């Protein structure tokens, strides 16, 4: 006989095994929370690793690189840099994003100086003999080497041809060889630098110069010397910065996903809390007896924690495994950005370290333990003598903490005033967390307020249900809190996503006033349209007028990602007809170049309407006056709008990437589109679309981006419904005596079902009312703080009333149904015998 084990059996395993369905449910919820968090983390980390590997591949052994804008910098800077004291090796590079002539996609082409790059990229250098043999085998100047991943994506092998678009012409390359994946991990093609300059109209230019410091050289000294000779349009970037730049665009999106996934774990922790509390309420007399028999309160607390830990270990272990499987499938089917489009062409490999596994395992166990702490403390408060008395019933009153809830909301409101931390809206997340916690704290008070005025209906099942709910604040709170948490977050996301989608739709409609849009190439891409072709397009029959645009980049501050320049012919007097103007300057521009900046640029560089800035354009800086701030959902790093005539005057760049066509009244759009196609011929790839098509495409991208959030919301709601189910089934066990008496007194099974359905219905209604209020508040934080700080996008609030009504109705119906299903034991014959049971 081993008494110690018997006590644990009785006090830890016994309660878990006595309610196996509830125990399994709790384990499942913890597993789900851990799985979601782990999967989202793994996907994010795999994407980051892949981006980092790609950046590292391009940097090789370089300590930093001089990076120019897409148009590049004069190659004569290179010898000046190479001769600087402290520089051991320098390797010039021409990097272009070449448009594939027959496809909509773009291929990164890296032009290397094979001799110089050997010092910085030994992995490529080791391939030199292969490269030379390949180049000789191919048609000399048109030789191109594909990285393994690019070859896989493009389905090309050595000897195949690849047509790239430069301006409006095609350049045919021959794949000389496919590089082993270890040699060059980026998704790119390698060519000789001279070929790159020649074929991509970059003669005399380089786009980056990789640099390695001499042993003992002071990096900051070298940077200073470099800054002195570099043109304004170049910046110095470390490999880490390059990775950060690549990841920054998706960072806020990934952080939001992680936060959403962690909500599931929080709800899991809350479910542990509610099931443990309910179990303690139900086992009150049993715990009192154990205490009377000699089990100390401390031991009882440890038993409660022990039970929760056991559930945490089982749930977290299953969750880690599920997370791995989910991440693998998500990467395979939705990509590294889960469909958001940030990492197109990236094919990350999924790996998970022991430490990562351990951290998420620990998170799951910790969530379970945290959920069990308060119930454990309650075991110590059970009054032993009173609880053992026959007829004793535990107090089910819930203490109301209105003041504490208000304090949480007040602190949350103060957090909203804080700026983003490291570009992330951490204070905003904190405020949301506090508001959700405040809502849970306020549930007893709100329940009281909502249930008290309900009248007696002279319908026994309904009256009994309402009386029970009024009198069992704790049960009701525990039942409703999980659903309040998940439903409020669902409401918040629904309002935010609808607001964003509707704002995007309205914005797209506003900024696409023309009848047809043509797009050829984009920033840094080799494809563009020349002015002669534009003239020909403008003269097409049926075309009333055209507006042309060029996309470029400008470095507004050193060591930051550049903003997009949208150079377009603008009617300055009626600018508000062309862009979604949020703020306009009230002071005159003077002699400065008028520009309009996007909200993202305004936020990132703390610029506002009326300010003047030094705008680096071409090789010089121009004084520019910010005439207004406009809403822009297209360029996440920020954009500035400038009249194309000014842009051409300042840069000499006459290339065109986009043309908007206004047609004569009554002209058939399809006819004009055919005319445009005939003029451009089919030798190059371009986008020719109506505003309607563009709107539909942008909404499709939006829906794909947010698809994963719908999945996460659904999981949160399912967990919330689990909470109602677990709570009601626990209550049914605790109320067996009550149901037994009711059956004795003549309450039919149908009336018991009606009573339970009514309880579920009321809990659902309360959950929906409180969730709607709390969710609406959280949605405003998401819209005005989290999104603004994450993406620098403002939006108008749109409340999706039909969707919210439908979700509310479904939730209430589900809560009623679940209450009946979870309480089916209350309708069986066993409850009749329960009147004879002590517990």
């Amino acid at each position, binding site marked *: 006989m081993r008494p110690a084990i018997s006590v644990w059996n009785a006090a830890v395993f016994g309660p878990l095994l006595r309610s196996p369905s509830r125990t399994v449910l709790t384990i499942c919820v913890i597993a789900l929370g851990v799985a979601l968090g782990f999967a989202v983390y793994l996907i994010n980390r795999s994407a980051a690793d892949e981006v980092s590997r790609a950046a590292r591949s391009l940097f090789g052994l370089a300590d930093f690189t001089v990076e120019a804008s897409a148009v590049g910098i004069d190659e004569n800077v290179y010898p000046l840099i190479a001769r600087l004291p402290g520089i051991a090796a320098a390797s010039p590079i021409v990097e272009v994003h070449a448009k594939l002539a027959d496809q909509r996609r773009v291929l990164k082409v890296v032009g290397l100086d094979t001799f110089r790059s050997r010092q910085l990229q030994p992995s490529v250098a080791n391939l030199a003999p292969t490269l030379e043999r390949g180049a000789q085998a191919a048609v000399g100047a048109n030789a191109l080497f594909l990285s393994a991943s690019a070859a896989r994506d493009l389905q090309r092998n050595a000897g195949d041809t690849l047509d790239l678009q430069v301006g409006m012409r095609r350049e045919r390359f021959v794949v000389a060889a496919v590089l082993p994946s270890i040699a060059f991990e980026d998704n790119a093609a390698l060519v000789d630098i001279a070929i790159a300059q020649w074929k991509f109209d970059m003669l005399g230019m380089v786009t980056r110069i990789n640099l390695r410091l001499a042993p003992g050289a002071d990096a900051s000294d070298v940077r200073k010397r470099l800054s002195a000779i570099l043109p304004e349009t170049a910046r110095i970037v470390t490999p880490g910065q390059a990775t950060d730049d690549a990841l920054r665009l998706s960072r806020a999106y990934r952080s939001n996903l992680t936060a959403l996934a962690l909500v599931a774990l929080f709800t899991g922790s809350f479910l542990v809390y509610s099931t443990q509390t309910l179990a303690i309420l139900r086992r009150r007399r049993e715990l009192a007896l154990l205490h009377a028999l000699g089990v100390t309160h401390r031991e009882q607390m440890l038993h409660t924690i022990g039970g929760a830990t056991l559930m945490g270990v089982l749930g977290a272990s299953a969750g880690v495994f599920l997370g791995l499987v989910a991440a693998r499938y998500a990467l395979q089917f939705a990509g590294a950005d889960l469909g958001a489009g940030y990492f197109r062409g990236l094919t990350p490999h999924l790996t998970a370290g022991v430490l990562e596994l351990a951290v998420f395992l620990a998170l799951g166990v910790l969530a379970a333990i945290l959920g069990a702490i308060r119930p454990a403390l309650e075991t110590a408060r059970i009054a032993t003598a009173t609880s053992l008395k026959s007829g004793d019933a535990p107090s089910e009153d819930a203490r109301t903490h209105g003041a504490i809830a208000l304090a949480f909301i007040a602190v949350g409101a103060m957090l909203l005033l804080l700026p983003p931390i490291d570009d992330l809206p951490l204070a905003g997340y904190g405020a949301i967390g506090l508001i959700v916690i405040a809502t849970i704290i306020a549930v007893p008070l709100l329940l009281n307020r909502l249930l008290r005025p309900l009248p007696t209906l002279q319908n026994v099942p309904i009256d009994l249900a309402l009386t029970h709910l009024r009198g069992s604040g704790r049960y009701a709170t525990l039942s409703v809190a999980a659903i309040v948490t998940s439903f409020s977050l669902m409401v918040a996301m629904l309002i935010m996503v609808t607001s964003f989608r509707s704002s995007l739709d309205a914005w797209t409609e506003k900024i696409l006033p023309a009848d047809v849009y043509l797009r050829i190439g984009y920033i840094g891409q080799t494809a563009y349209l020349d002015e002669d072709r534009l003239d020909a397009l403008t003269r097409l029959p049926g075309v009333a007028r055209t507006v042309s645009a060029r996309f470029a980049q400008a470095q507004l501050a050193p060591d930051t990602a550049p903003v997009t320049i949208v150079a377009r012919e603008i009617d300055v007097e009626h600018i508000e007809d062309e862009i979604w103007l949020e703020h306009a300057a009230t002071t005159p521009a003077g002699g400065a170049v008028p520009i309009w900046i996007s909200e993202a640029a305004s936020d990132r560089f703390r610029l506002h309407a009326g300010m003047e800035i030094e705008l680096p354009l071409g090789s010089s800086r121009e004084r520019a006056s910010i005439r207004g701030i406009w809403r822009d959902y297209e360029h996440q790093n920020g954009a500035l709008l400038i009249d194309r005539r000014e842009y051409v005057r300042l840069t000499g760049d006459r290339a065109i990437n986009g043309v908007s066509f206004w047609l004569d009244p009554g002209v058939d759009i399809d006819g004009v589109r055919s005319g445009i196609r005939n003029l451009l011929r089919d030798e190059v790839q371009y986008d020719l679309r109506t505003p309607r098509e563009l709107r539909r495409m942008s909404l499709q991208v939006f829906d794909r981006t947010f698809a994963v959030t719908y999945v996460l919301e659904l999981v949160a709601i399912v967990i919330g419904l689990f909470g109602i189910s677990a709570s009601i089934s626990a209550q049914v066990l605790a109320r067996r005596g009550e149901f037994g008496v009711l059956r004795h007194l003549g309450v*039919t*099974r149908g009336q018991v079902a009606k009573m339970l359905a009514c309880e579920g219905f009321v809990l659902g209604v309360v959950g929906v009312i409180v969730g709607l209020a709390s969710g609406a508040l959280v949605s405003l934080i998401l819209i005005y703080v989290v999104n603004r700080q994450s993406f620098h996008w403002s939006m108008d609030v749109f409340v999706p009333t039909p969707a919210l009504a439908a979700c509310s109705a479904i939730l209430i119906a589900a809560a009623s149904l679940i209450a009946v299903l979870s309480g089916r034991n209350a309708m069986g014959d066993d409850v009749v015998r329960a009147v004879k049971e002590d517990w």
Partner: protein
Amino acid sequence: MLNVEQVSKAFRERRVLQQVSLQLAAGEYVAIMGESGVGKSTLLNLIAGLEIPDAGRVLLEGRDLGSMDDAERTRVRRSRLGFVFQAFHLLPHLTIAKNIGLPLALNGIHGAPARERVAELLAAVGLATRADSYPRELSGGEMQRVAIARALVHRPALVLADEPTGNLDAEAAQHVLELLANQLHRDGAACILVTHSEIAAATTQRTLRLTARGIEVAEQ
């Protein structure tokens, strides 16, 4: 009023009651005694229509409970039976008045008639001033008095009292038994009192002893 004819009941392999018969006249008050596990509570459940006998019949006011479906038996129980339990079993969230009035509500009696009858019973059990109290605010004896009022409030034909004094001290038990006897007499209800207590049994009109062989008349 009650005719239990040769009923037998087994749970799985365990035979609990074997051809037990019992007759009870209207307004009659009998005690059933017997050793633990002999089937006293099972007999009460059969009489209440909560269990169906494997053999034999239970006739309440001439109606065979075994021939009714569950809903019909429930309606009979609701209107014609009252219950008093050892552990009181008051509903914790209802006030004393509402606990007592619950059978009336189940029988569709609301408003003034219900209030008057509840007030009458509250006065009869000596708890007129505690109408708005909750069960947790009462002593064991008081709770059992409330349970007696609840059992009689709808004027049932038969009250089934299963060890009603089992959780009470001697003084409270005596008080409850006197109250039960008086109320039964006043309302004209019959009652079966299941008890281990000779003192409790002595308050009834006759005492029966349930054994493995069946029901025997005990010596008074």
